[in-house]
């Protein structure tokens, strides 16, 4: 049933990059995605990593996956990717 749910791109915002030296954002993002989706390969799920100036990622998630990510420690917000316009 999880697979049949419609997926959309959500942005997972995780605040500042932790200053501890052993933190690797991409590994953390992938482990979150693997834990949430239960899939060992998250190809096709991960849209973007934010890892140079702040922490987070964008991924294709179902609504229930979105809810689970939002509950995780270290996650500030999860919100749908929308289109903005040139002004």
């Amino acid at each position, binding site marked *: 049933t999880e697979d049949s749910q419609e997926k959309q791109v959500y*942005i997972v915002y*995780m*605040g500042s990059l932790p200053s501890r030296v052993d933190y690797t954002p991409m590994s953390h993002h992938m482990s979150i995605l693997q834990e949430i989706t239960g899939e060992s390969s998250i190809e096709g799920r991960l849209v973007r990593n934010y*890892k140079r100036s702040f922490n987070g990622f*964008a991924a294709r998630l179902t609504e229930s996956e979105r809810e689970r990510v939002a509950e995780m420690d270290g996650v500030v*917000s999860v919100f749908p990717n929308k*289109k*903005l316009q040139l002004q």
Partner: protein
Amino acid sequence: TTSSWDFMGLKEGKKTNRNPTVESDTIIGVIDSGITPESQSFSDKGFGPPPEKWKGVCSGGENFTCNNKLIGARDYTNSGTRDTEGHGTHTASTAAGNAVADTSFFGIGNGTVRGGVPASRIAAYKACNATGCGMEALLSAFDDAIADGVDLITISIGGESAHSFETDSIAIGTFHAMANGILTVSSAGNSGPEDSTVCAVAPWILTVAATTTNRGFVTKVVLGNGKTLVGKSVNAFDMKGQKYPIVYGKSAASSVCEAENAALCEPECLEASLVKGKILVCASTKGLKVAESVGAIALIFKSLKPDVAFIHPLPASGLPEKDFDSLVSYIESTESPSAAILKTEEIFNRTSPLVGSFSSRGPNTIAVDILKPDITAPGVEILAAFSPDGELSQGDTRHVKYSVLSGTSMSCPHVAGVAAYVKTFYPKWSPSMIQSAIMTTAWPVNATGTGIASTEFAFGAGHVDPIAASNPGLVYELDKTDHIAFLCGMNYTSKILRIISDETVTCSEDKEISPRNLNYPSMTARLSVPHSNFTVTFNRTLTNVGPSSSTYKSKVVAGHRSNLNVNVTPSVLSFKEVNEKQSFRVTVTGSDLDSKLPSSAYLIWSDGTHNVRSPIVVYTG
């Protein structure tokens, strides 16, 4: 741009005091629809290698080459950084384009086009294409721009309304830019003149409304009876003054439409045989899409935005309602009505600056005690570089290197250019110091209109003044800690704020962390219910960035619909050294606020040379 910098007093060449070495070391990050690397506005003639601090790349895709002026390019649209819209080329050149002489749009607006800081470098981050700008792409652009080492970011992108900070990609990206010492300048939005439409509302963003300059464009319509109507458009088509028969849409209705729909020139509503070879007259802008398909040679339409001239794919002029009604009367009272549409003329706008009808208005719907927009700048009929691949208007087959655009997108890079200009004199200044310098030195805007469209909710602190901003005397400083305290006051939890800042945060219950007490260069209070009598206070601290020994006296002047009593304690601030800080409290009392319009006053700290001016706005509703 060919006139707006002169309008603001930032003259060309030696007439303006500049710091060319630092200007050349300043990098402006432009998050937009890409850029046209071959444009003369971005030629690197006379430029040395990029500043050593630059950590970015040129990753613009095929057939895209950077140079010592355009030092960086990244793409988040999978189409390369080349600008096929024209928008990103326009905004980048407005902020930091080279001076290029004898530039015009088919002869219209001729002059030397230039950006605010022509010696500065540009890094282009393409996050938008014809379908818009994905929030995920925008965040990537911020993630890279901050790490690449840009000094300022300009972003002329937004939605139709504001989002809460934690779900707003621009608020998030700009927060981290601020935390890294980078000021972001953003457009206010184009959803005006309705209230509560401003979309960039965080206090760590410098939000810009759009106003006219003293140069305007008009397109005259000369009727067969000799009467001339003055319309708006950017019409480069020269019909040599010849008059052609005119036909009102409702007189050319096809058999499948009511006359009312034909009057609006709805699609499928016009009979081509009755329009062919004539000037079509439409009671809406819908005629712009159908005029050519039914054989019209030109178009006169009733304009929804009669204060702004747009480019159209055929000879056209947009009339305000009163003049349009006059035209219809002429048509209906004349057996063979005719008219000529003339080529666009430049006029001297005596009433400028006026806020564009499209420019989004406050109040701020997220942080209700922060005035937004912050400032206004030229954003109406701006001639700047364009992409030859871009479409000038829907269905337009012409291709140009310079074009005329209007929007808060156009005003935003003007303020980014000013911010860069200020930063050339004070390279170590924080984002908030630059923002304060720009806001407290703004020209008062003459709000002659009525309603919310002509209050501080339209223009913020006033119109940007580049020269005055480079010598503000005093500034209101803010750092990341202040913004975190502000977010505490916005009811974000300590736990969330610790993650956002990667610092220990303890939000206190103290009233002093009220958002109203953020050390912002404007002072705003929303009263939740209409009060017959009210008292609000604002705590502020000023930093001396002028002469070491100086004494400033406070003065309060009335704003619009001012029924505010303002008391400032202490009323005199004496500084003995540079960077010294002095605090004061503003107490505002009053009664019977207007339920729809804000009341305002201005606090001015003056030492006789510097006038440090802040709007005080109280509103309800």
